[in-house]
């Protein structure tokens, strides 16, 4: 790993420079502008792939870290890094933006359009790699302006109203979060004497620096901002409008990565900084998440507009992500992280497909569309596959995330899991029903003459299909990179919260012993006890996140020691050669 090259900084800044380059290009040179947009977004995306390639899956901590003083007077630094949780979101961003840029044609004012998209890419990347609260906040806010401009400038129908609603909702959330961040920083300063916005430092101190009430209030100010961004019921109302009126690329990016800012931040900043509060508030998050799942599904079923339907399906899917996070065990949180990526892939693909239908038929009204599969079988096939992934069909990526989330939730809050599982069925209902109405049935008039996928469109869709099938069939490479970091975070929770057992209930085998005995007594069973004992004898006892984390750290330390020894031997040899 070449530490001298700040690759993450480059990932964030390259699109920003691209935006400046486009701003300086004359408006009439559309080809150059397009070339710049593709070039800069692909460069940043390629670097994100490089990060994925060089990511050390054994290391649960932050990798590719780079620190740079920014505003010394406030202890603010440009501090970036990735771990297993942010890694795939960075890659998702790096892949989705170039695809959205290439895959969607723009008719007017290309210069501003591409400049805003690149700026948006820089902002999103900034959120995912930020390890400094100030940098995080700046990036979180910076994403607002380009998205606002994209919806307002290139959207449909009531675009200005939708854009303004989006802007004000999210800005209101983050306004209070800024006060929360500053309160956290200053309280930490008065307790430890160190003025810093650095996430790892604050996370280490927060437990001692803040009283319970203080951390609860500050967490609430964070959670409100994230809840609006995710969006959680009842602050989700900006989302359907924004999605529906946004241009295709806007919806793709909004659903693909922007919604993840909220859940990611909840995990990274909520969880990491306030584990005690998250444990106390987990039932609230579970409840709100379950409401989101059911409500989103029910409302989606009733939509007449195809795009709006998918928008509401996002509410349901993001509800799942929140449930998984609130499950507070390795399965649930890992499932949430992978579900964020999956939702990004499948919903972005769905919005692209709806965009393609819209450019052909100039309507998204489900009742106006019918029998499209006759004229456009390939379009129908691709749509079918993506839709099934969104439903969560086993063998496709959506299943992996939803299964893990439900499994994890079942262990720590089974009633919520039972209700949420109903959401999966509802998802099948509204998506299949919509598919049936749009693609089956008689094809008349314009519907019969619809053009099938072109080569460029097929090429744009190909990466999505590959990702959907690959993650669905063989999720291991993804999971084994996510899990160490999830374990590390949960271990923090275990260490800092007394009597915390959720995370240890893996596979149900570490149930409360008293409860286990009682069950055995009641049903006149003794098998479970034996089985558990067997497990203990053979060393199969499921471990807690902390134990796994400690194991990994040992391996890392051993590897480091080995590398050091090698380097020493090398140096000695070199010394001997020199003599």
């Amino acid at each position, binding site marked *: 790993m070449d530490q001298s090259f700040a690759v993450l900084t480059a990932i964030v800044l390259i699109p920003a420079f691209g935006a400046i380059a486009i701003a300086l290009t004359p*408006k009439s040179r559309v080809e150059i502008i397009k070339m710049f947009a593709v070039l800069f977004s692909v460069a940043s995306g390629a670097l994100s792939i490089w990060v994925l390639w060089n990511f050390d899956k054994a290391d649960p901590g932050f990798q590719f870290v780079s620190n740079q003083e*920014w*505003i*010394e*007077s*406030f202890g603010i630094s440009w501090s970036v890094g990735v771990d297993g949780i942010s890694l795939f979101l960075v890659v998702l961003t790096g892949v989705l933006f170039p695809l959205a840029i290439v895959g969607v044609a723009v008719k*007017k004012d290309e210069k501003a359009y591409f400049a805003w998209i690149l700026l948006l890419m820089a902002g999103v990347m900034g959120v995912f790699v930020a390890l400094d609260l100030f940098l995080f*906040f*700046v*990036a979180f*806010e*910076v994403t*607002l*302006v380009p998205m*606002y*401009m994209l919806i*307002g*400038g290139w959207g449909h129908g009531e*675009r*200005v109203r939708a*854009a*303004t609603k989006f*802007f*004000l909702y999210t*800005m*209101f959330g983050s*306004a*209070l979060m*800024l*006060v929360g961040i*500053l*309160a956290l*920083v*200053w309280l930490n*300063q008065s307790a430890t004497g160190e003025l810093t916005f650095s996430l790892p430092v604050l996370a280490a101190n927060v437990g001692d620096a803040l009283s319970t009430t203080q951390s609860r209030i500050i967490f609430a100010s964070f959670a409100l901002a994230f809840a609006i961004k995710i969006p959680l019921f009842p602050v989700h109302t900006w989302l359907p409008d924004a999605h529906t009126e946004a241009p295709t690329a806007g919806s793709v990016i909004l659903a693909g990565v922007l919604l993840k800012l909220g859940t990611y931040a909840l995990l990274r900043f909520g969880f990491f900084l306030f584990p005690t509060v998250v444990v106390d508030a987990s039932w609230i998050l579970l409840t709100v998440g379950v409401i989101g799942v059911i409500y989103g599904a029910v409302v989606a079923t009733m939509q007449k507009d195809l795009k709006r339907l998918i928008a509401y399906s996002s509410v349901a899917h993001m509800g799942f992500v929140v449930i998984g996070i609130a499950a507070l065990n390795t399965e649930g949180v890992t499932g949430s992280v992978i579900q964020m990526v999956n939702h990004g892939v499948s919903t972005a693909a769905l919005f692209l497909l709806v965009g393609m239908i819209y450019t052909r038929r100039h309507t998204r009204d489900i009742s106006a569309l019918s029998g499209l599969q006759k004229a456009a079988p390939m379009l129908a096939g691709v749509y079918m596959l993506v839709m099934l992934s969104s439903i969560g069909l086993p063998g496709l990526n959506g299943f992996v995330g939803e299964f893990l989330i439900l499994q994890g939730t079942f262990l720590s809050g089974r009633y919520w899991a039972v209700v949420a599982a109903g959401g999966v069925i509802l998802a099948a209902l509204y998506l299949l029903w919509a598919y049936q109405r749009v693609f089956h049935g008689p094809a008349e008039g314009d519907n019969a003459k619809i053009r099938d996928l072109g080569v460029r469109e097929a090429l744009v869709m190909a990466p999505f299909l590959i990702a959907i099938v690959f993650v669905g069939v063989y999720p291991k490479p993804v999971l084994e990179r996510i899990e160490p970091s999830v374990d590390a975070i949960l271990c923090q929770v275990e260490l800092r919260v007394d009597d915390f057992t959720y995370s240890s209930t893996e596979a149900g085998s570490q149930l409360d012993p008293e409860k286990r005995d009682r069950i055995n007594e009641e049903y006149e069973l003794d098998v479970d006890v034996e089985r558990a004992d067997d497990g203990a004898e053979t060393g199969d006892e499921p471990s807690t996140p902390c134990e796994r984390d400690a194991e990994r750290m040992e391996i890392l330390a051993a590897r480091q020691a080995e590398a050091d020894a090698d380097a020493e031997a090398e140096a000695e040899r070199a010394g001997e050669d020199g003599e």
Partner: protein
Amino acid sequence: MSSLWTALAQFGPEGVPGGGTVDDGVVQIATPSVDWTAIAPILVLAIGALLLLAVDSLWRGKKPAGFYALWTVVTAGAAGLATIPMWDRIDESGALSTVGGAVGVDGFTLLMTAVICSAVFLGALLAKDYLPREGLDGPGFYVLMLLSASGGVIMAMANDLIVLFIGLETLSIAAYVLAAMHLKRIQSQEAGMKYFVLGAFSSAFFLYGIAMIYGATGSTNLVRINDFLSQNLLRSDGLLLLGLALMLVGLGFKVAAVPFHSWAPDVYDGAPGPVVAYMASGIKAAGFAGIIRVLYLTFPSYSDDWRPIIFVLAILSLGVGAVLAIVQSDVKRMLAYSSISHAGFILVGVEAATQAGVSAVLFYLATYTFLVVGTFAVITLVDQQGDSAHELSDYRGLSRSSPVLAFVFTILLMAQAGVPLTSGFFAKFYVISASVEAGSYWLAGLAMAAAVIAAFLYLRLIVTMWMSTDADGAPAEGTKIRVPFAAGLVLAITFIVTVGVGIWPQPAVEWSEEGEPVLVEYQPPEPVDLGVPPGF
């Protein structure tokens, strides 16, 4: 001659004018010792103004275009640069007081002076093409602006309530005339009249407040008042508090804090664009300089009494400014309310009553000066000849007809809304940080909520510029705006400062931290033997 030197050198605070000494039968008039470099900015501004008048009346015939503006720009620049030698002295020996303790010069004064001079600098550049366009060219505008600024600088260095009042009046009376400067618009006359009547009223309040504080403490000198209050406990402080409240009315009027704001929308609407730019930046800065010197410096022991008042003023200004701004359809009125809301934000920094709060106020004022002048530069340009096109609809389609102008305007508005990577965001961040540090969580939270309401206003303007459509759905086409060189320079400077400070605020933060206001006792200089030449 020798006796004059000795008299000058020997004068101290006790040597009251009129009580001169008698030497060799000649009554020597005692004058205070004056540290000329310390008050150089005032002198440069005032003498620059008077010289401009003199030159104009002596030099008959047509002046080269832009002569007055250039003169003003050079004068303001020189006044700003005149603060530089003082920095070293303050770094070495701390703040100092001179002119018999009437003025005090500290880091705060110097930064405020720089802010006010920047406002004049940019305002004059803006006026260069505005005045000929409106057929109003002449030295009067520039002379008044320079004199008003000298009053502002006096306020920033006042160490005595009477001096503060003199500064306030110099600042204001010139500004009343400036507001009425547009002879062809009846609204401008109305604005001047309104500003004058209400302003004179508020000055009377201010003066009355001074009298009461004199009655309660026995002095008008800030150092003496502070000493008196720290050494004595007033058994009944009603008089003092009433005096303080009355002074706050006067100062609150100058910064347009609610409920003393009612003049602002009408005056902003009627007054010429460059004047509004100067009022929103320079006069506001001077007003806050007065507030800091009086409240934070002189009455720290009464902070429990005045902090709640500032709290209420801040909340009212933030709320009323933001809410009333959204319902306006006239851009100048909108920005008048937005500037009221900004005043509320600055008051949040004052409410903290800490050094960090003062630094935040300085940072906010410095960055806001550039922001607001840039904003009004665009408005002045879009106004066109006749100075009347400032309805919201006049901005429709500006992005298509003048994309660069629309882009700069958008960035400036975003900065006013507090979007990150602009100076406006960091200014808000700084103020909120100081407020949270001082424990005023509620105020900080409410201020941020008000900032979101105010953001709607800027979005409305941005939408009008970028996203307006005609009845048939086609993008609206605005009128092409010609940007003269001087106004373009203003826009370039304000844009670069706004974005530059937004991305890299560290240097500006360091300067603001230097801007520490301190009260120092007047130290009369040692009588020096100036070595009288033989033969005298």
